[in-house]
């Protein structure tokens, strides 16, 4: 099986990129690991979130907003291709604050960013009473929230399923159970060797392998300075309509369960959840919505997500191996639309390509002046 582009990694990032490249008429092969792989896509919370992104890097804020604005047509296209509705809702989302001071501090950050971005303020500040009108179950300890109108959420599993289906339906070769041992330049392009020994040849290669990227990156001239960050997620039984909009830590999924997340632990390659973290997440959720105290937790899991040194995506074309690209990010769901729509233009060198130089690995070369 030979192709123009080989995508290493079949999670939401790899599949979004594959989907976009296929849409530009390119021949694509995708390589994905097996059922036991770490799979950051298991940790997707489902937020399509901009309010907290790029507070110190306006280009990342713009990129996130560009992606959020492109999400609706992206979701519609996935539905047309596969009949799977990703259940996108973009009615705004909250960051919840338990004190006036925390609310004020976050507001100051948002206003500082907004002044750099220019344009109308896309967020409102809600005190406790105003918030309670929007979310009747909000608890007395909540001081207030910032409601950002560009935020929303989606069903990440349906997104993944739709992407997997669309990519296959449009003719891409998808190899599963195909962990990659090495990617080497060869025959004018790249030889991709699976752990079972089979070798695939592609003209270009896009490394979207999450935590698997560092092992392959060096040979292609990338630094890939990513590390695992464990995020734990709780999900409850399905209940009646409880929340109208998502918060950054709690949302009601389309099937009815309440999803709770936002733990961040640096524990290496350990994807085991702990009781202490589960209990803390539960307590935080009950503080925000006291009625959740009687709701049953049915599952808790931890997934290893990807962190770059500054938390901002890396998009890098190899300087030493032209035709090799490295793509990594923490917010694979928020950026899925951008990865499907705009990133492929950059990969193919289209004249409409966005300027992504801010996201290159060169920023990690900075030495003290």
């Amino acid at each position, binding site marked *: 099986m030979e192709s123009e582009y080989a995508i290493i990694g*079949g999670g939401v990032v790899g599949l979004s990129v594959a989907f976009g490249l296929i849409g530009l008429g390119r021949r694509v092969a995708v390589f*994905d690991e*097996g*059922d*036991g792989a770490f799979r950051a*896509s*298991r940790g997707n919370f489902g937020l399509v979130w901009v309010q907290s992104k790029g507070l110190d890097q306006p280009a990342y804020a713009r990129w996130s907003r560009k992606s959020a604005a492109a999400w609706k047509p992206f979701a519609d296209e996935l539905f047309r291709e596969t009949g799977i509705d990703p259940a996108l809702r973009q009615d705004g989302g909250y960051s919840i604050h338990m004190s006036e001071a925390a609310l004020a501090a976050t507001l100051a950050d948002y206003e500082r960013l907004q002044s750099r971005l220019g344009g109308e303020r896309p967020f409102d500040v809600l005190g406790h009473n105003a918030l309670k009108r929007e979310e009747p179950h909000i608890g007395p300890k909540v001081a207030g929230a910032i409601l950002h109108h560009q935020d929303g959420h989606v069903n990440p*599993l349906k997104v*993944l*399923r739709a992407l*997997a*289906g669309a990519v*296959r339906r449009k003719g891409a070769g*998808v190899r*599963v*159970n195909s962990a990659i041992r090495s990617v080497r330049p060869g025959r004018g392009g790249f030889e991709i060797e699976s752990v079972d020994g089979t070798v695939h040849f592609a003209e270009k290669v896009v490394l979207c392998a999450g935590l698997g990227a560092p092992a392959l990156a060096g040979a292609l001239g990338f630094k890939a300075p990513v590390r695992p960050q464990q995020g734990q997620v*709780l*999900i*409850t*039984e399905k209940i009646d309509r409880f929340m109208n909009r998502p918060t950054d830590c709690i949302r009601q999924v389309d*099937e009815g369960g309440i999803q*709770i997340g936002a733990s961040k*632990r640096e*524990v290496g390659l350990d994807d*085991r*959840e*702990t*009781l*202490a*973290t*589960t*209990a*803390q997440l*539960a*307590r935080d*959720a*009950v503080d925000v919505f006291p009625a*959740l*105290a*009687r*709701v*049953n*937790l*049915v*599952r*808790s*899991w*931890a997934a290893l997500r990807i962190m770059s040194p500054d938390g901002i995506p890396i998009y890098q074309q190899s300087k030493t191996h032209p035709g090799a690209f490295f793509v990594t990010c923490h917010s694979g769901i928020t950026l899925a639309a951008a990865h499907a729509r705009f990133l492929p233009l950059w990969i193919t060198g289209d004249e409409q390509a966005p300027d992504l130089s801010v996201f290159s690995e060169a920023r990690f070369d900075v030495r003290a002046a």
Partner: protein
Amino acid sequence: MTRADIVIVGAGPAGMAAASVAADLGADVLVLDEQAGPGGQIYRSIEFSDALRAGILGEDYAAGGILAREFAGKSVRFERAATVWRVDPDGVIAYSRANRAHRVRAGHVILATGAQERPVPLPGWTLPGIMTAGAAQIMLKSAAIAPRDAVLAGSGPLLYLLADQLIRAGVPPRALIETQTVRNHLAAARHLPGAVVGWRAIAKGMALLRGIRAAGVERFTACREIRLIGEESATGDARVAGIAFVCGTVERRIACSTVLLHQGVVPNTQITRSLRLDHVWDDAQRCFRPVLDAWGASSNPRISVAGDGASIGGAKAAEAAGRLAALDAALRIGVIDRDRRDRGAGPLQRLRGRELAVRPFLDALYAPPLQILQPVDETIVCRCEEVTAGAIRGYAKLGCVGPNQTKAFGRCGMGPCQGRFCGLTVTEILAMETGLPHGQVGAYRIRAPIKPVTLGEIASLAGEDETDAAGTPPQNAAT
């Protein structure tokens, strides 16, 4: 957080026997069981059995009374209605009792959570009025309630035991729809030597069959294409109204309002999976079981497994396994020495060996049929999320190679039962679709809480001492 030398999860035959031995050896023992009393499922409600139930349920059930009385007389802390929802590899156990969360740190843990019914996915099996054979036995044991005119469908010795119990109760089943074929008999014949050693079990089975014949209960064997038929009741809800099947060349349908399904029992591996213990696919028993040494110790030196939760062997084998596990646990926590442990072991190992001798014969004779290992496309496999066999086959075509990806693809296994009633079927379907061996296809990754628990209860454990902010417990001074 409280402490105990040995915590035993489950007060069925393995758990009761383990507790009795451990207490006699001087260990501080805590037994946790989620039911209202000891006995597990096989000796359910053993404390309260009356003459009526004793007459119906038979002498094997009555034998449980001896074990329960022994257990009751021991110096053991026994907490009833205590639902364990988390066991950590370092021996910390979280459980729920009367809507309150508790934690205990164990020097050693013996898991004796027993077995569950193998899922029997047939078209229409989710209709109200369809239950498991085990459910009917629980109703008999715990409440002296019996189904009238039930049809029993599937295979296995429990089916005959239940039929016998219903006959004695004066409510004989309408019919037995059995799936074992001549091929099963031939496969079983290869294991006759073991059956000879376990002749008592065979003799009991034959006596049950004679009784069923004498009562005039119709038996159909080598049945295929079994389907459950529903109808709308007066309230507009569907419930079961009949069972259709093919026997020989004849298509049949029997009208009934209760169907009891059974295809053997399989180890309950929810806790062992959540601990990431090593498991192996057992082709003869057609299920996963934890990898254990002769004493029941697992790949985690602090955790042992005894009874049907280790591998299916029945109540007597479970009792022996429980006693062996307790001897070994007592050594591991330093209460006895190696000689003392080994001295007690011989008779128990021999007894367990004798009890297990008949298993290969029974496993072959009553092996689950293809129609439930590879259900037809329309059959619901994941009852909680209503995912069909056909949908799962579709996921396989989209590159889904293991059960954990079926969760991502279609929520299969993500409902409240946490894969208990779909896991094995998903493994079978994916093994067929991918051509990979069952062990490689694997099983659901299971994580705590292994039973649902309210957020309020869990929140009450936040900030408790004994763990640091990163959730890492302090080093335990004991081994």
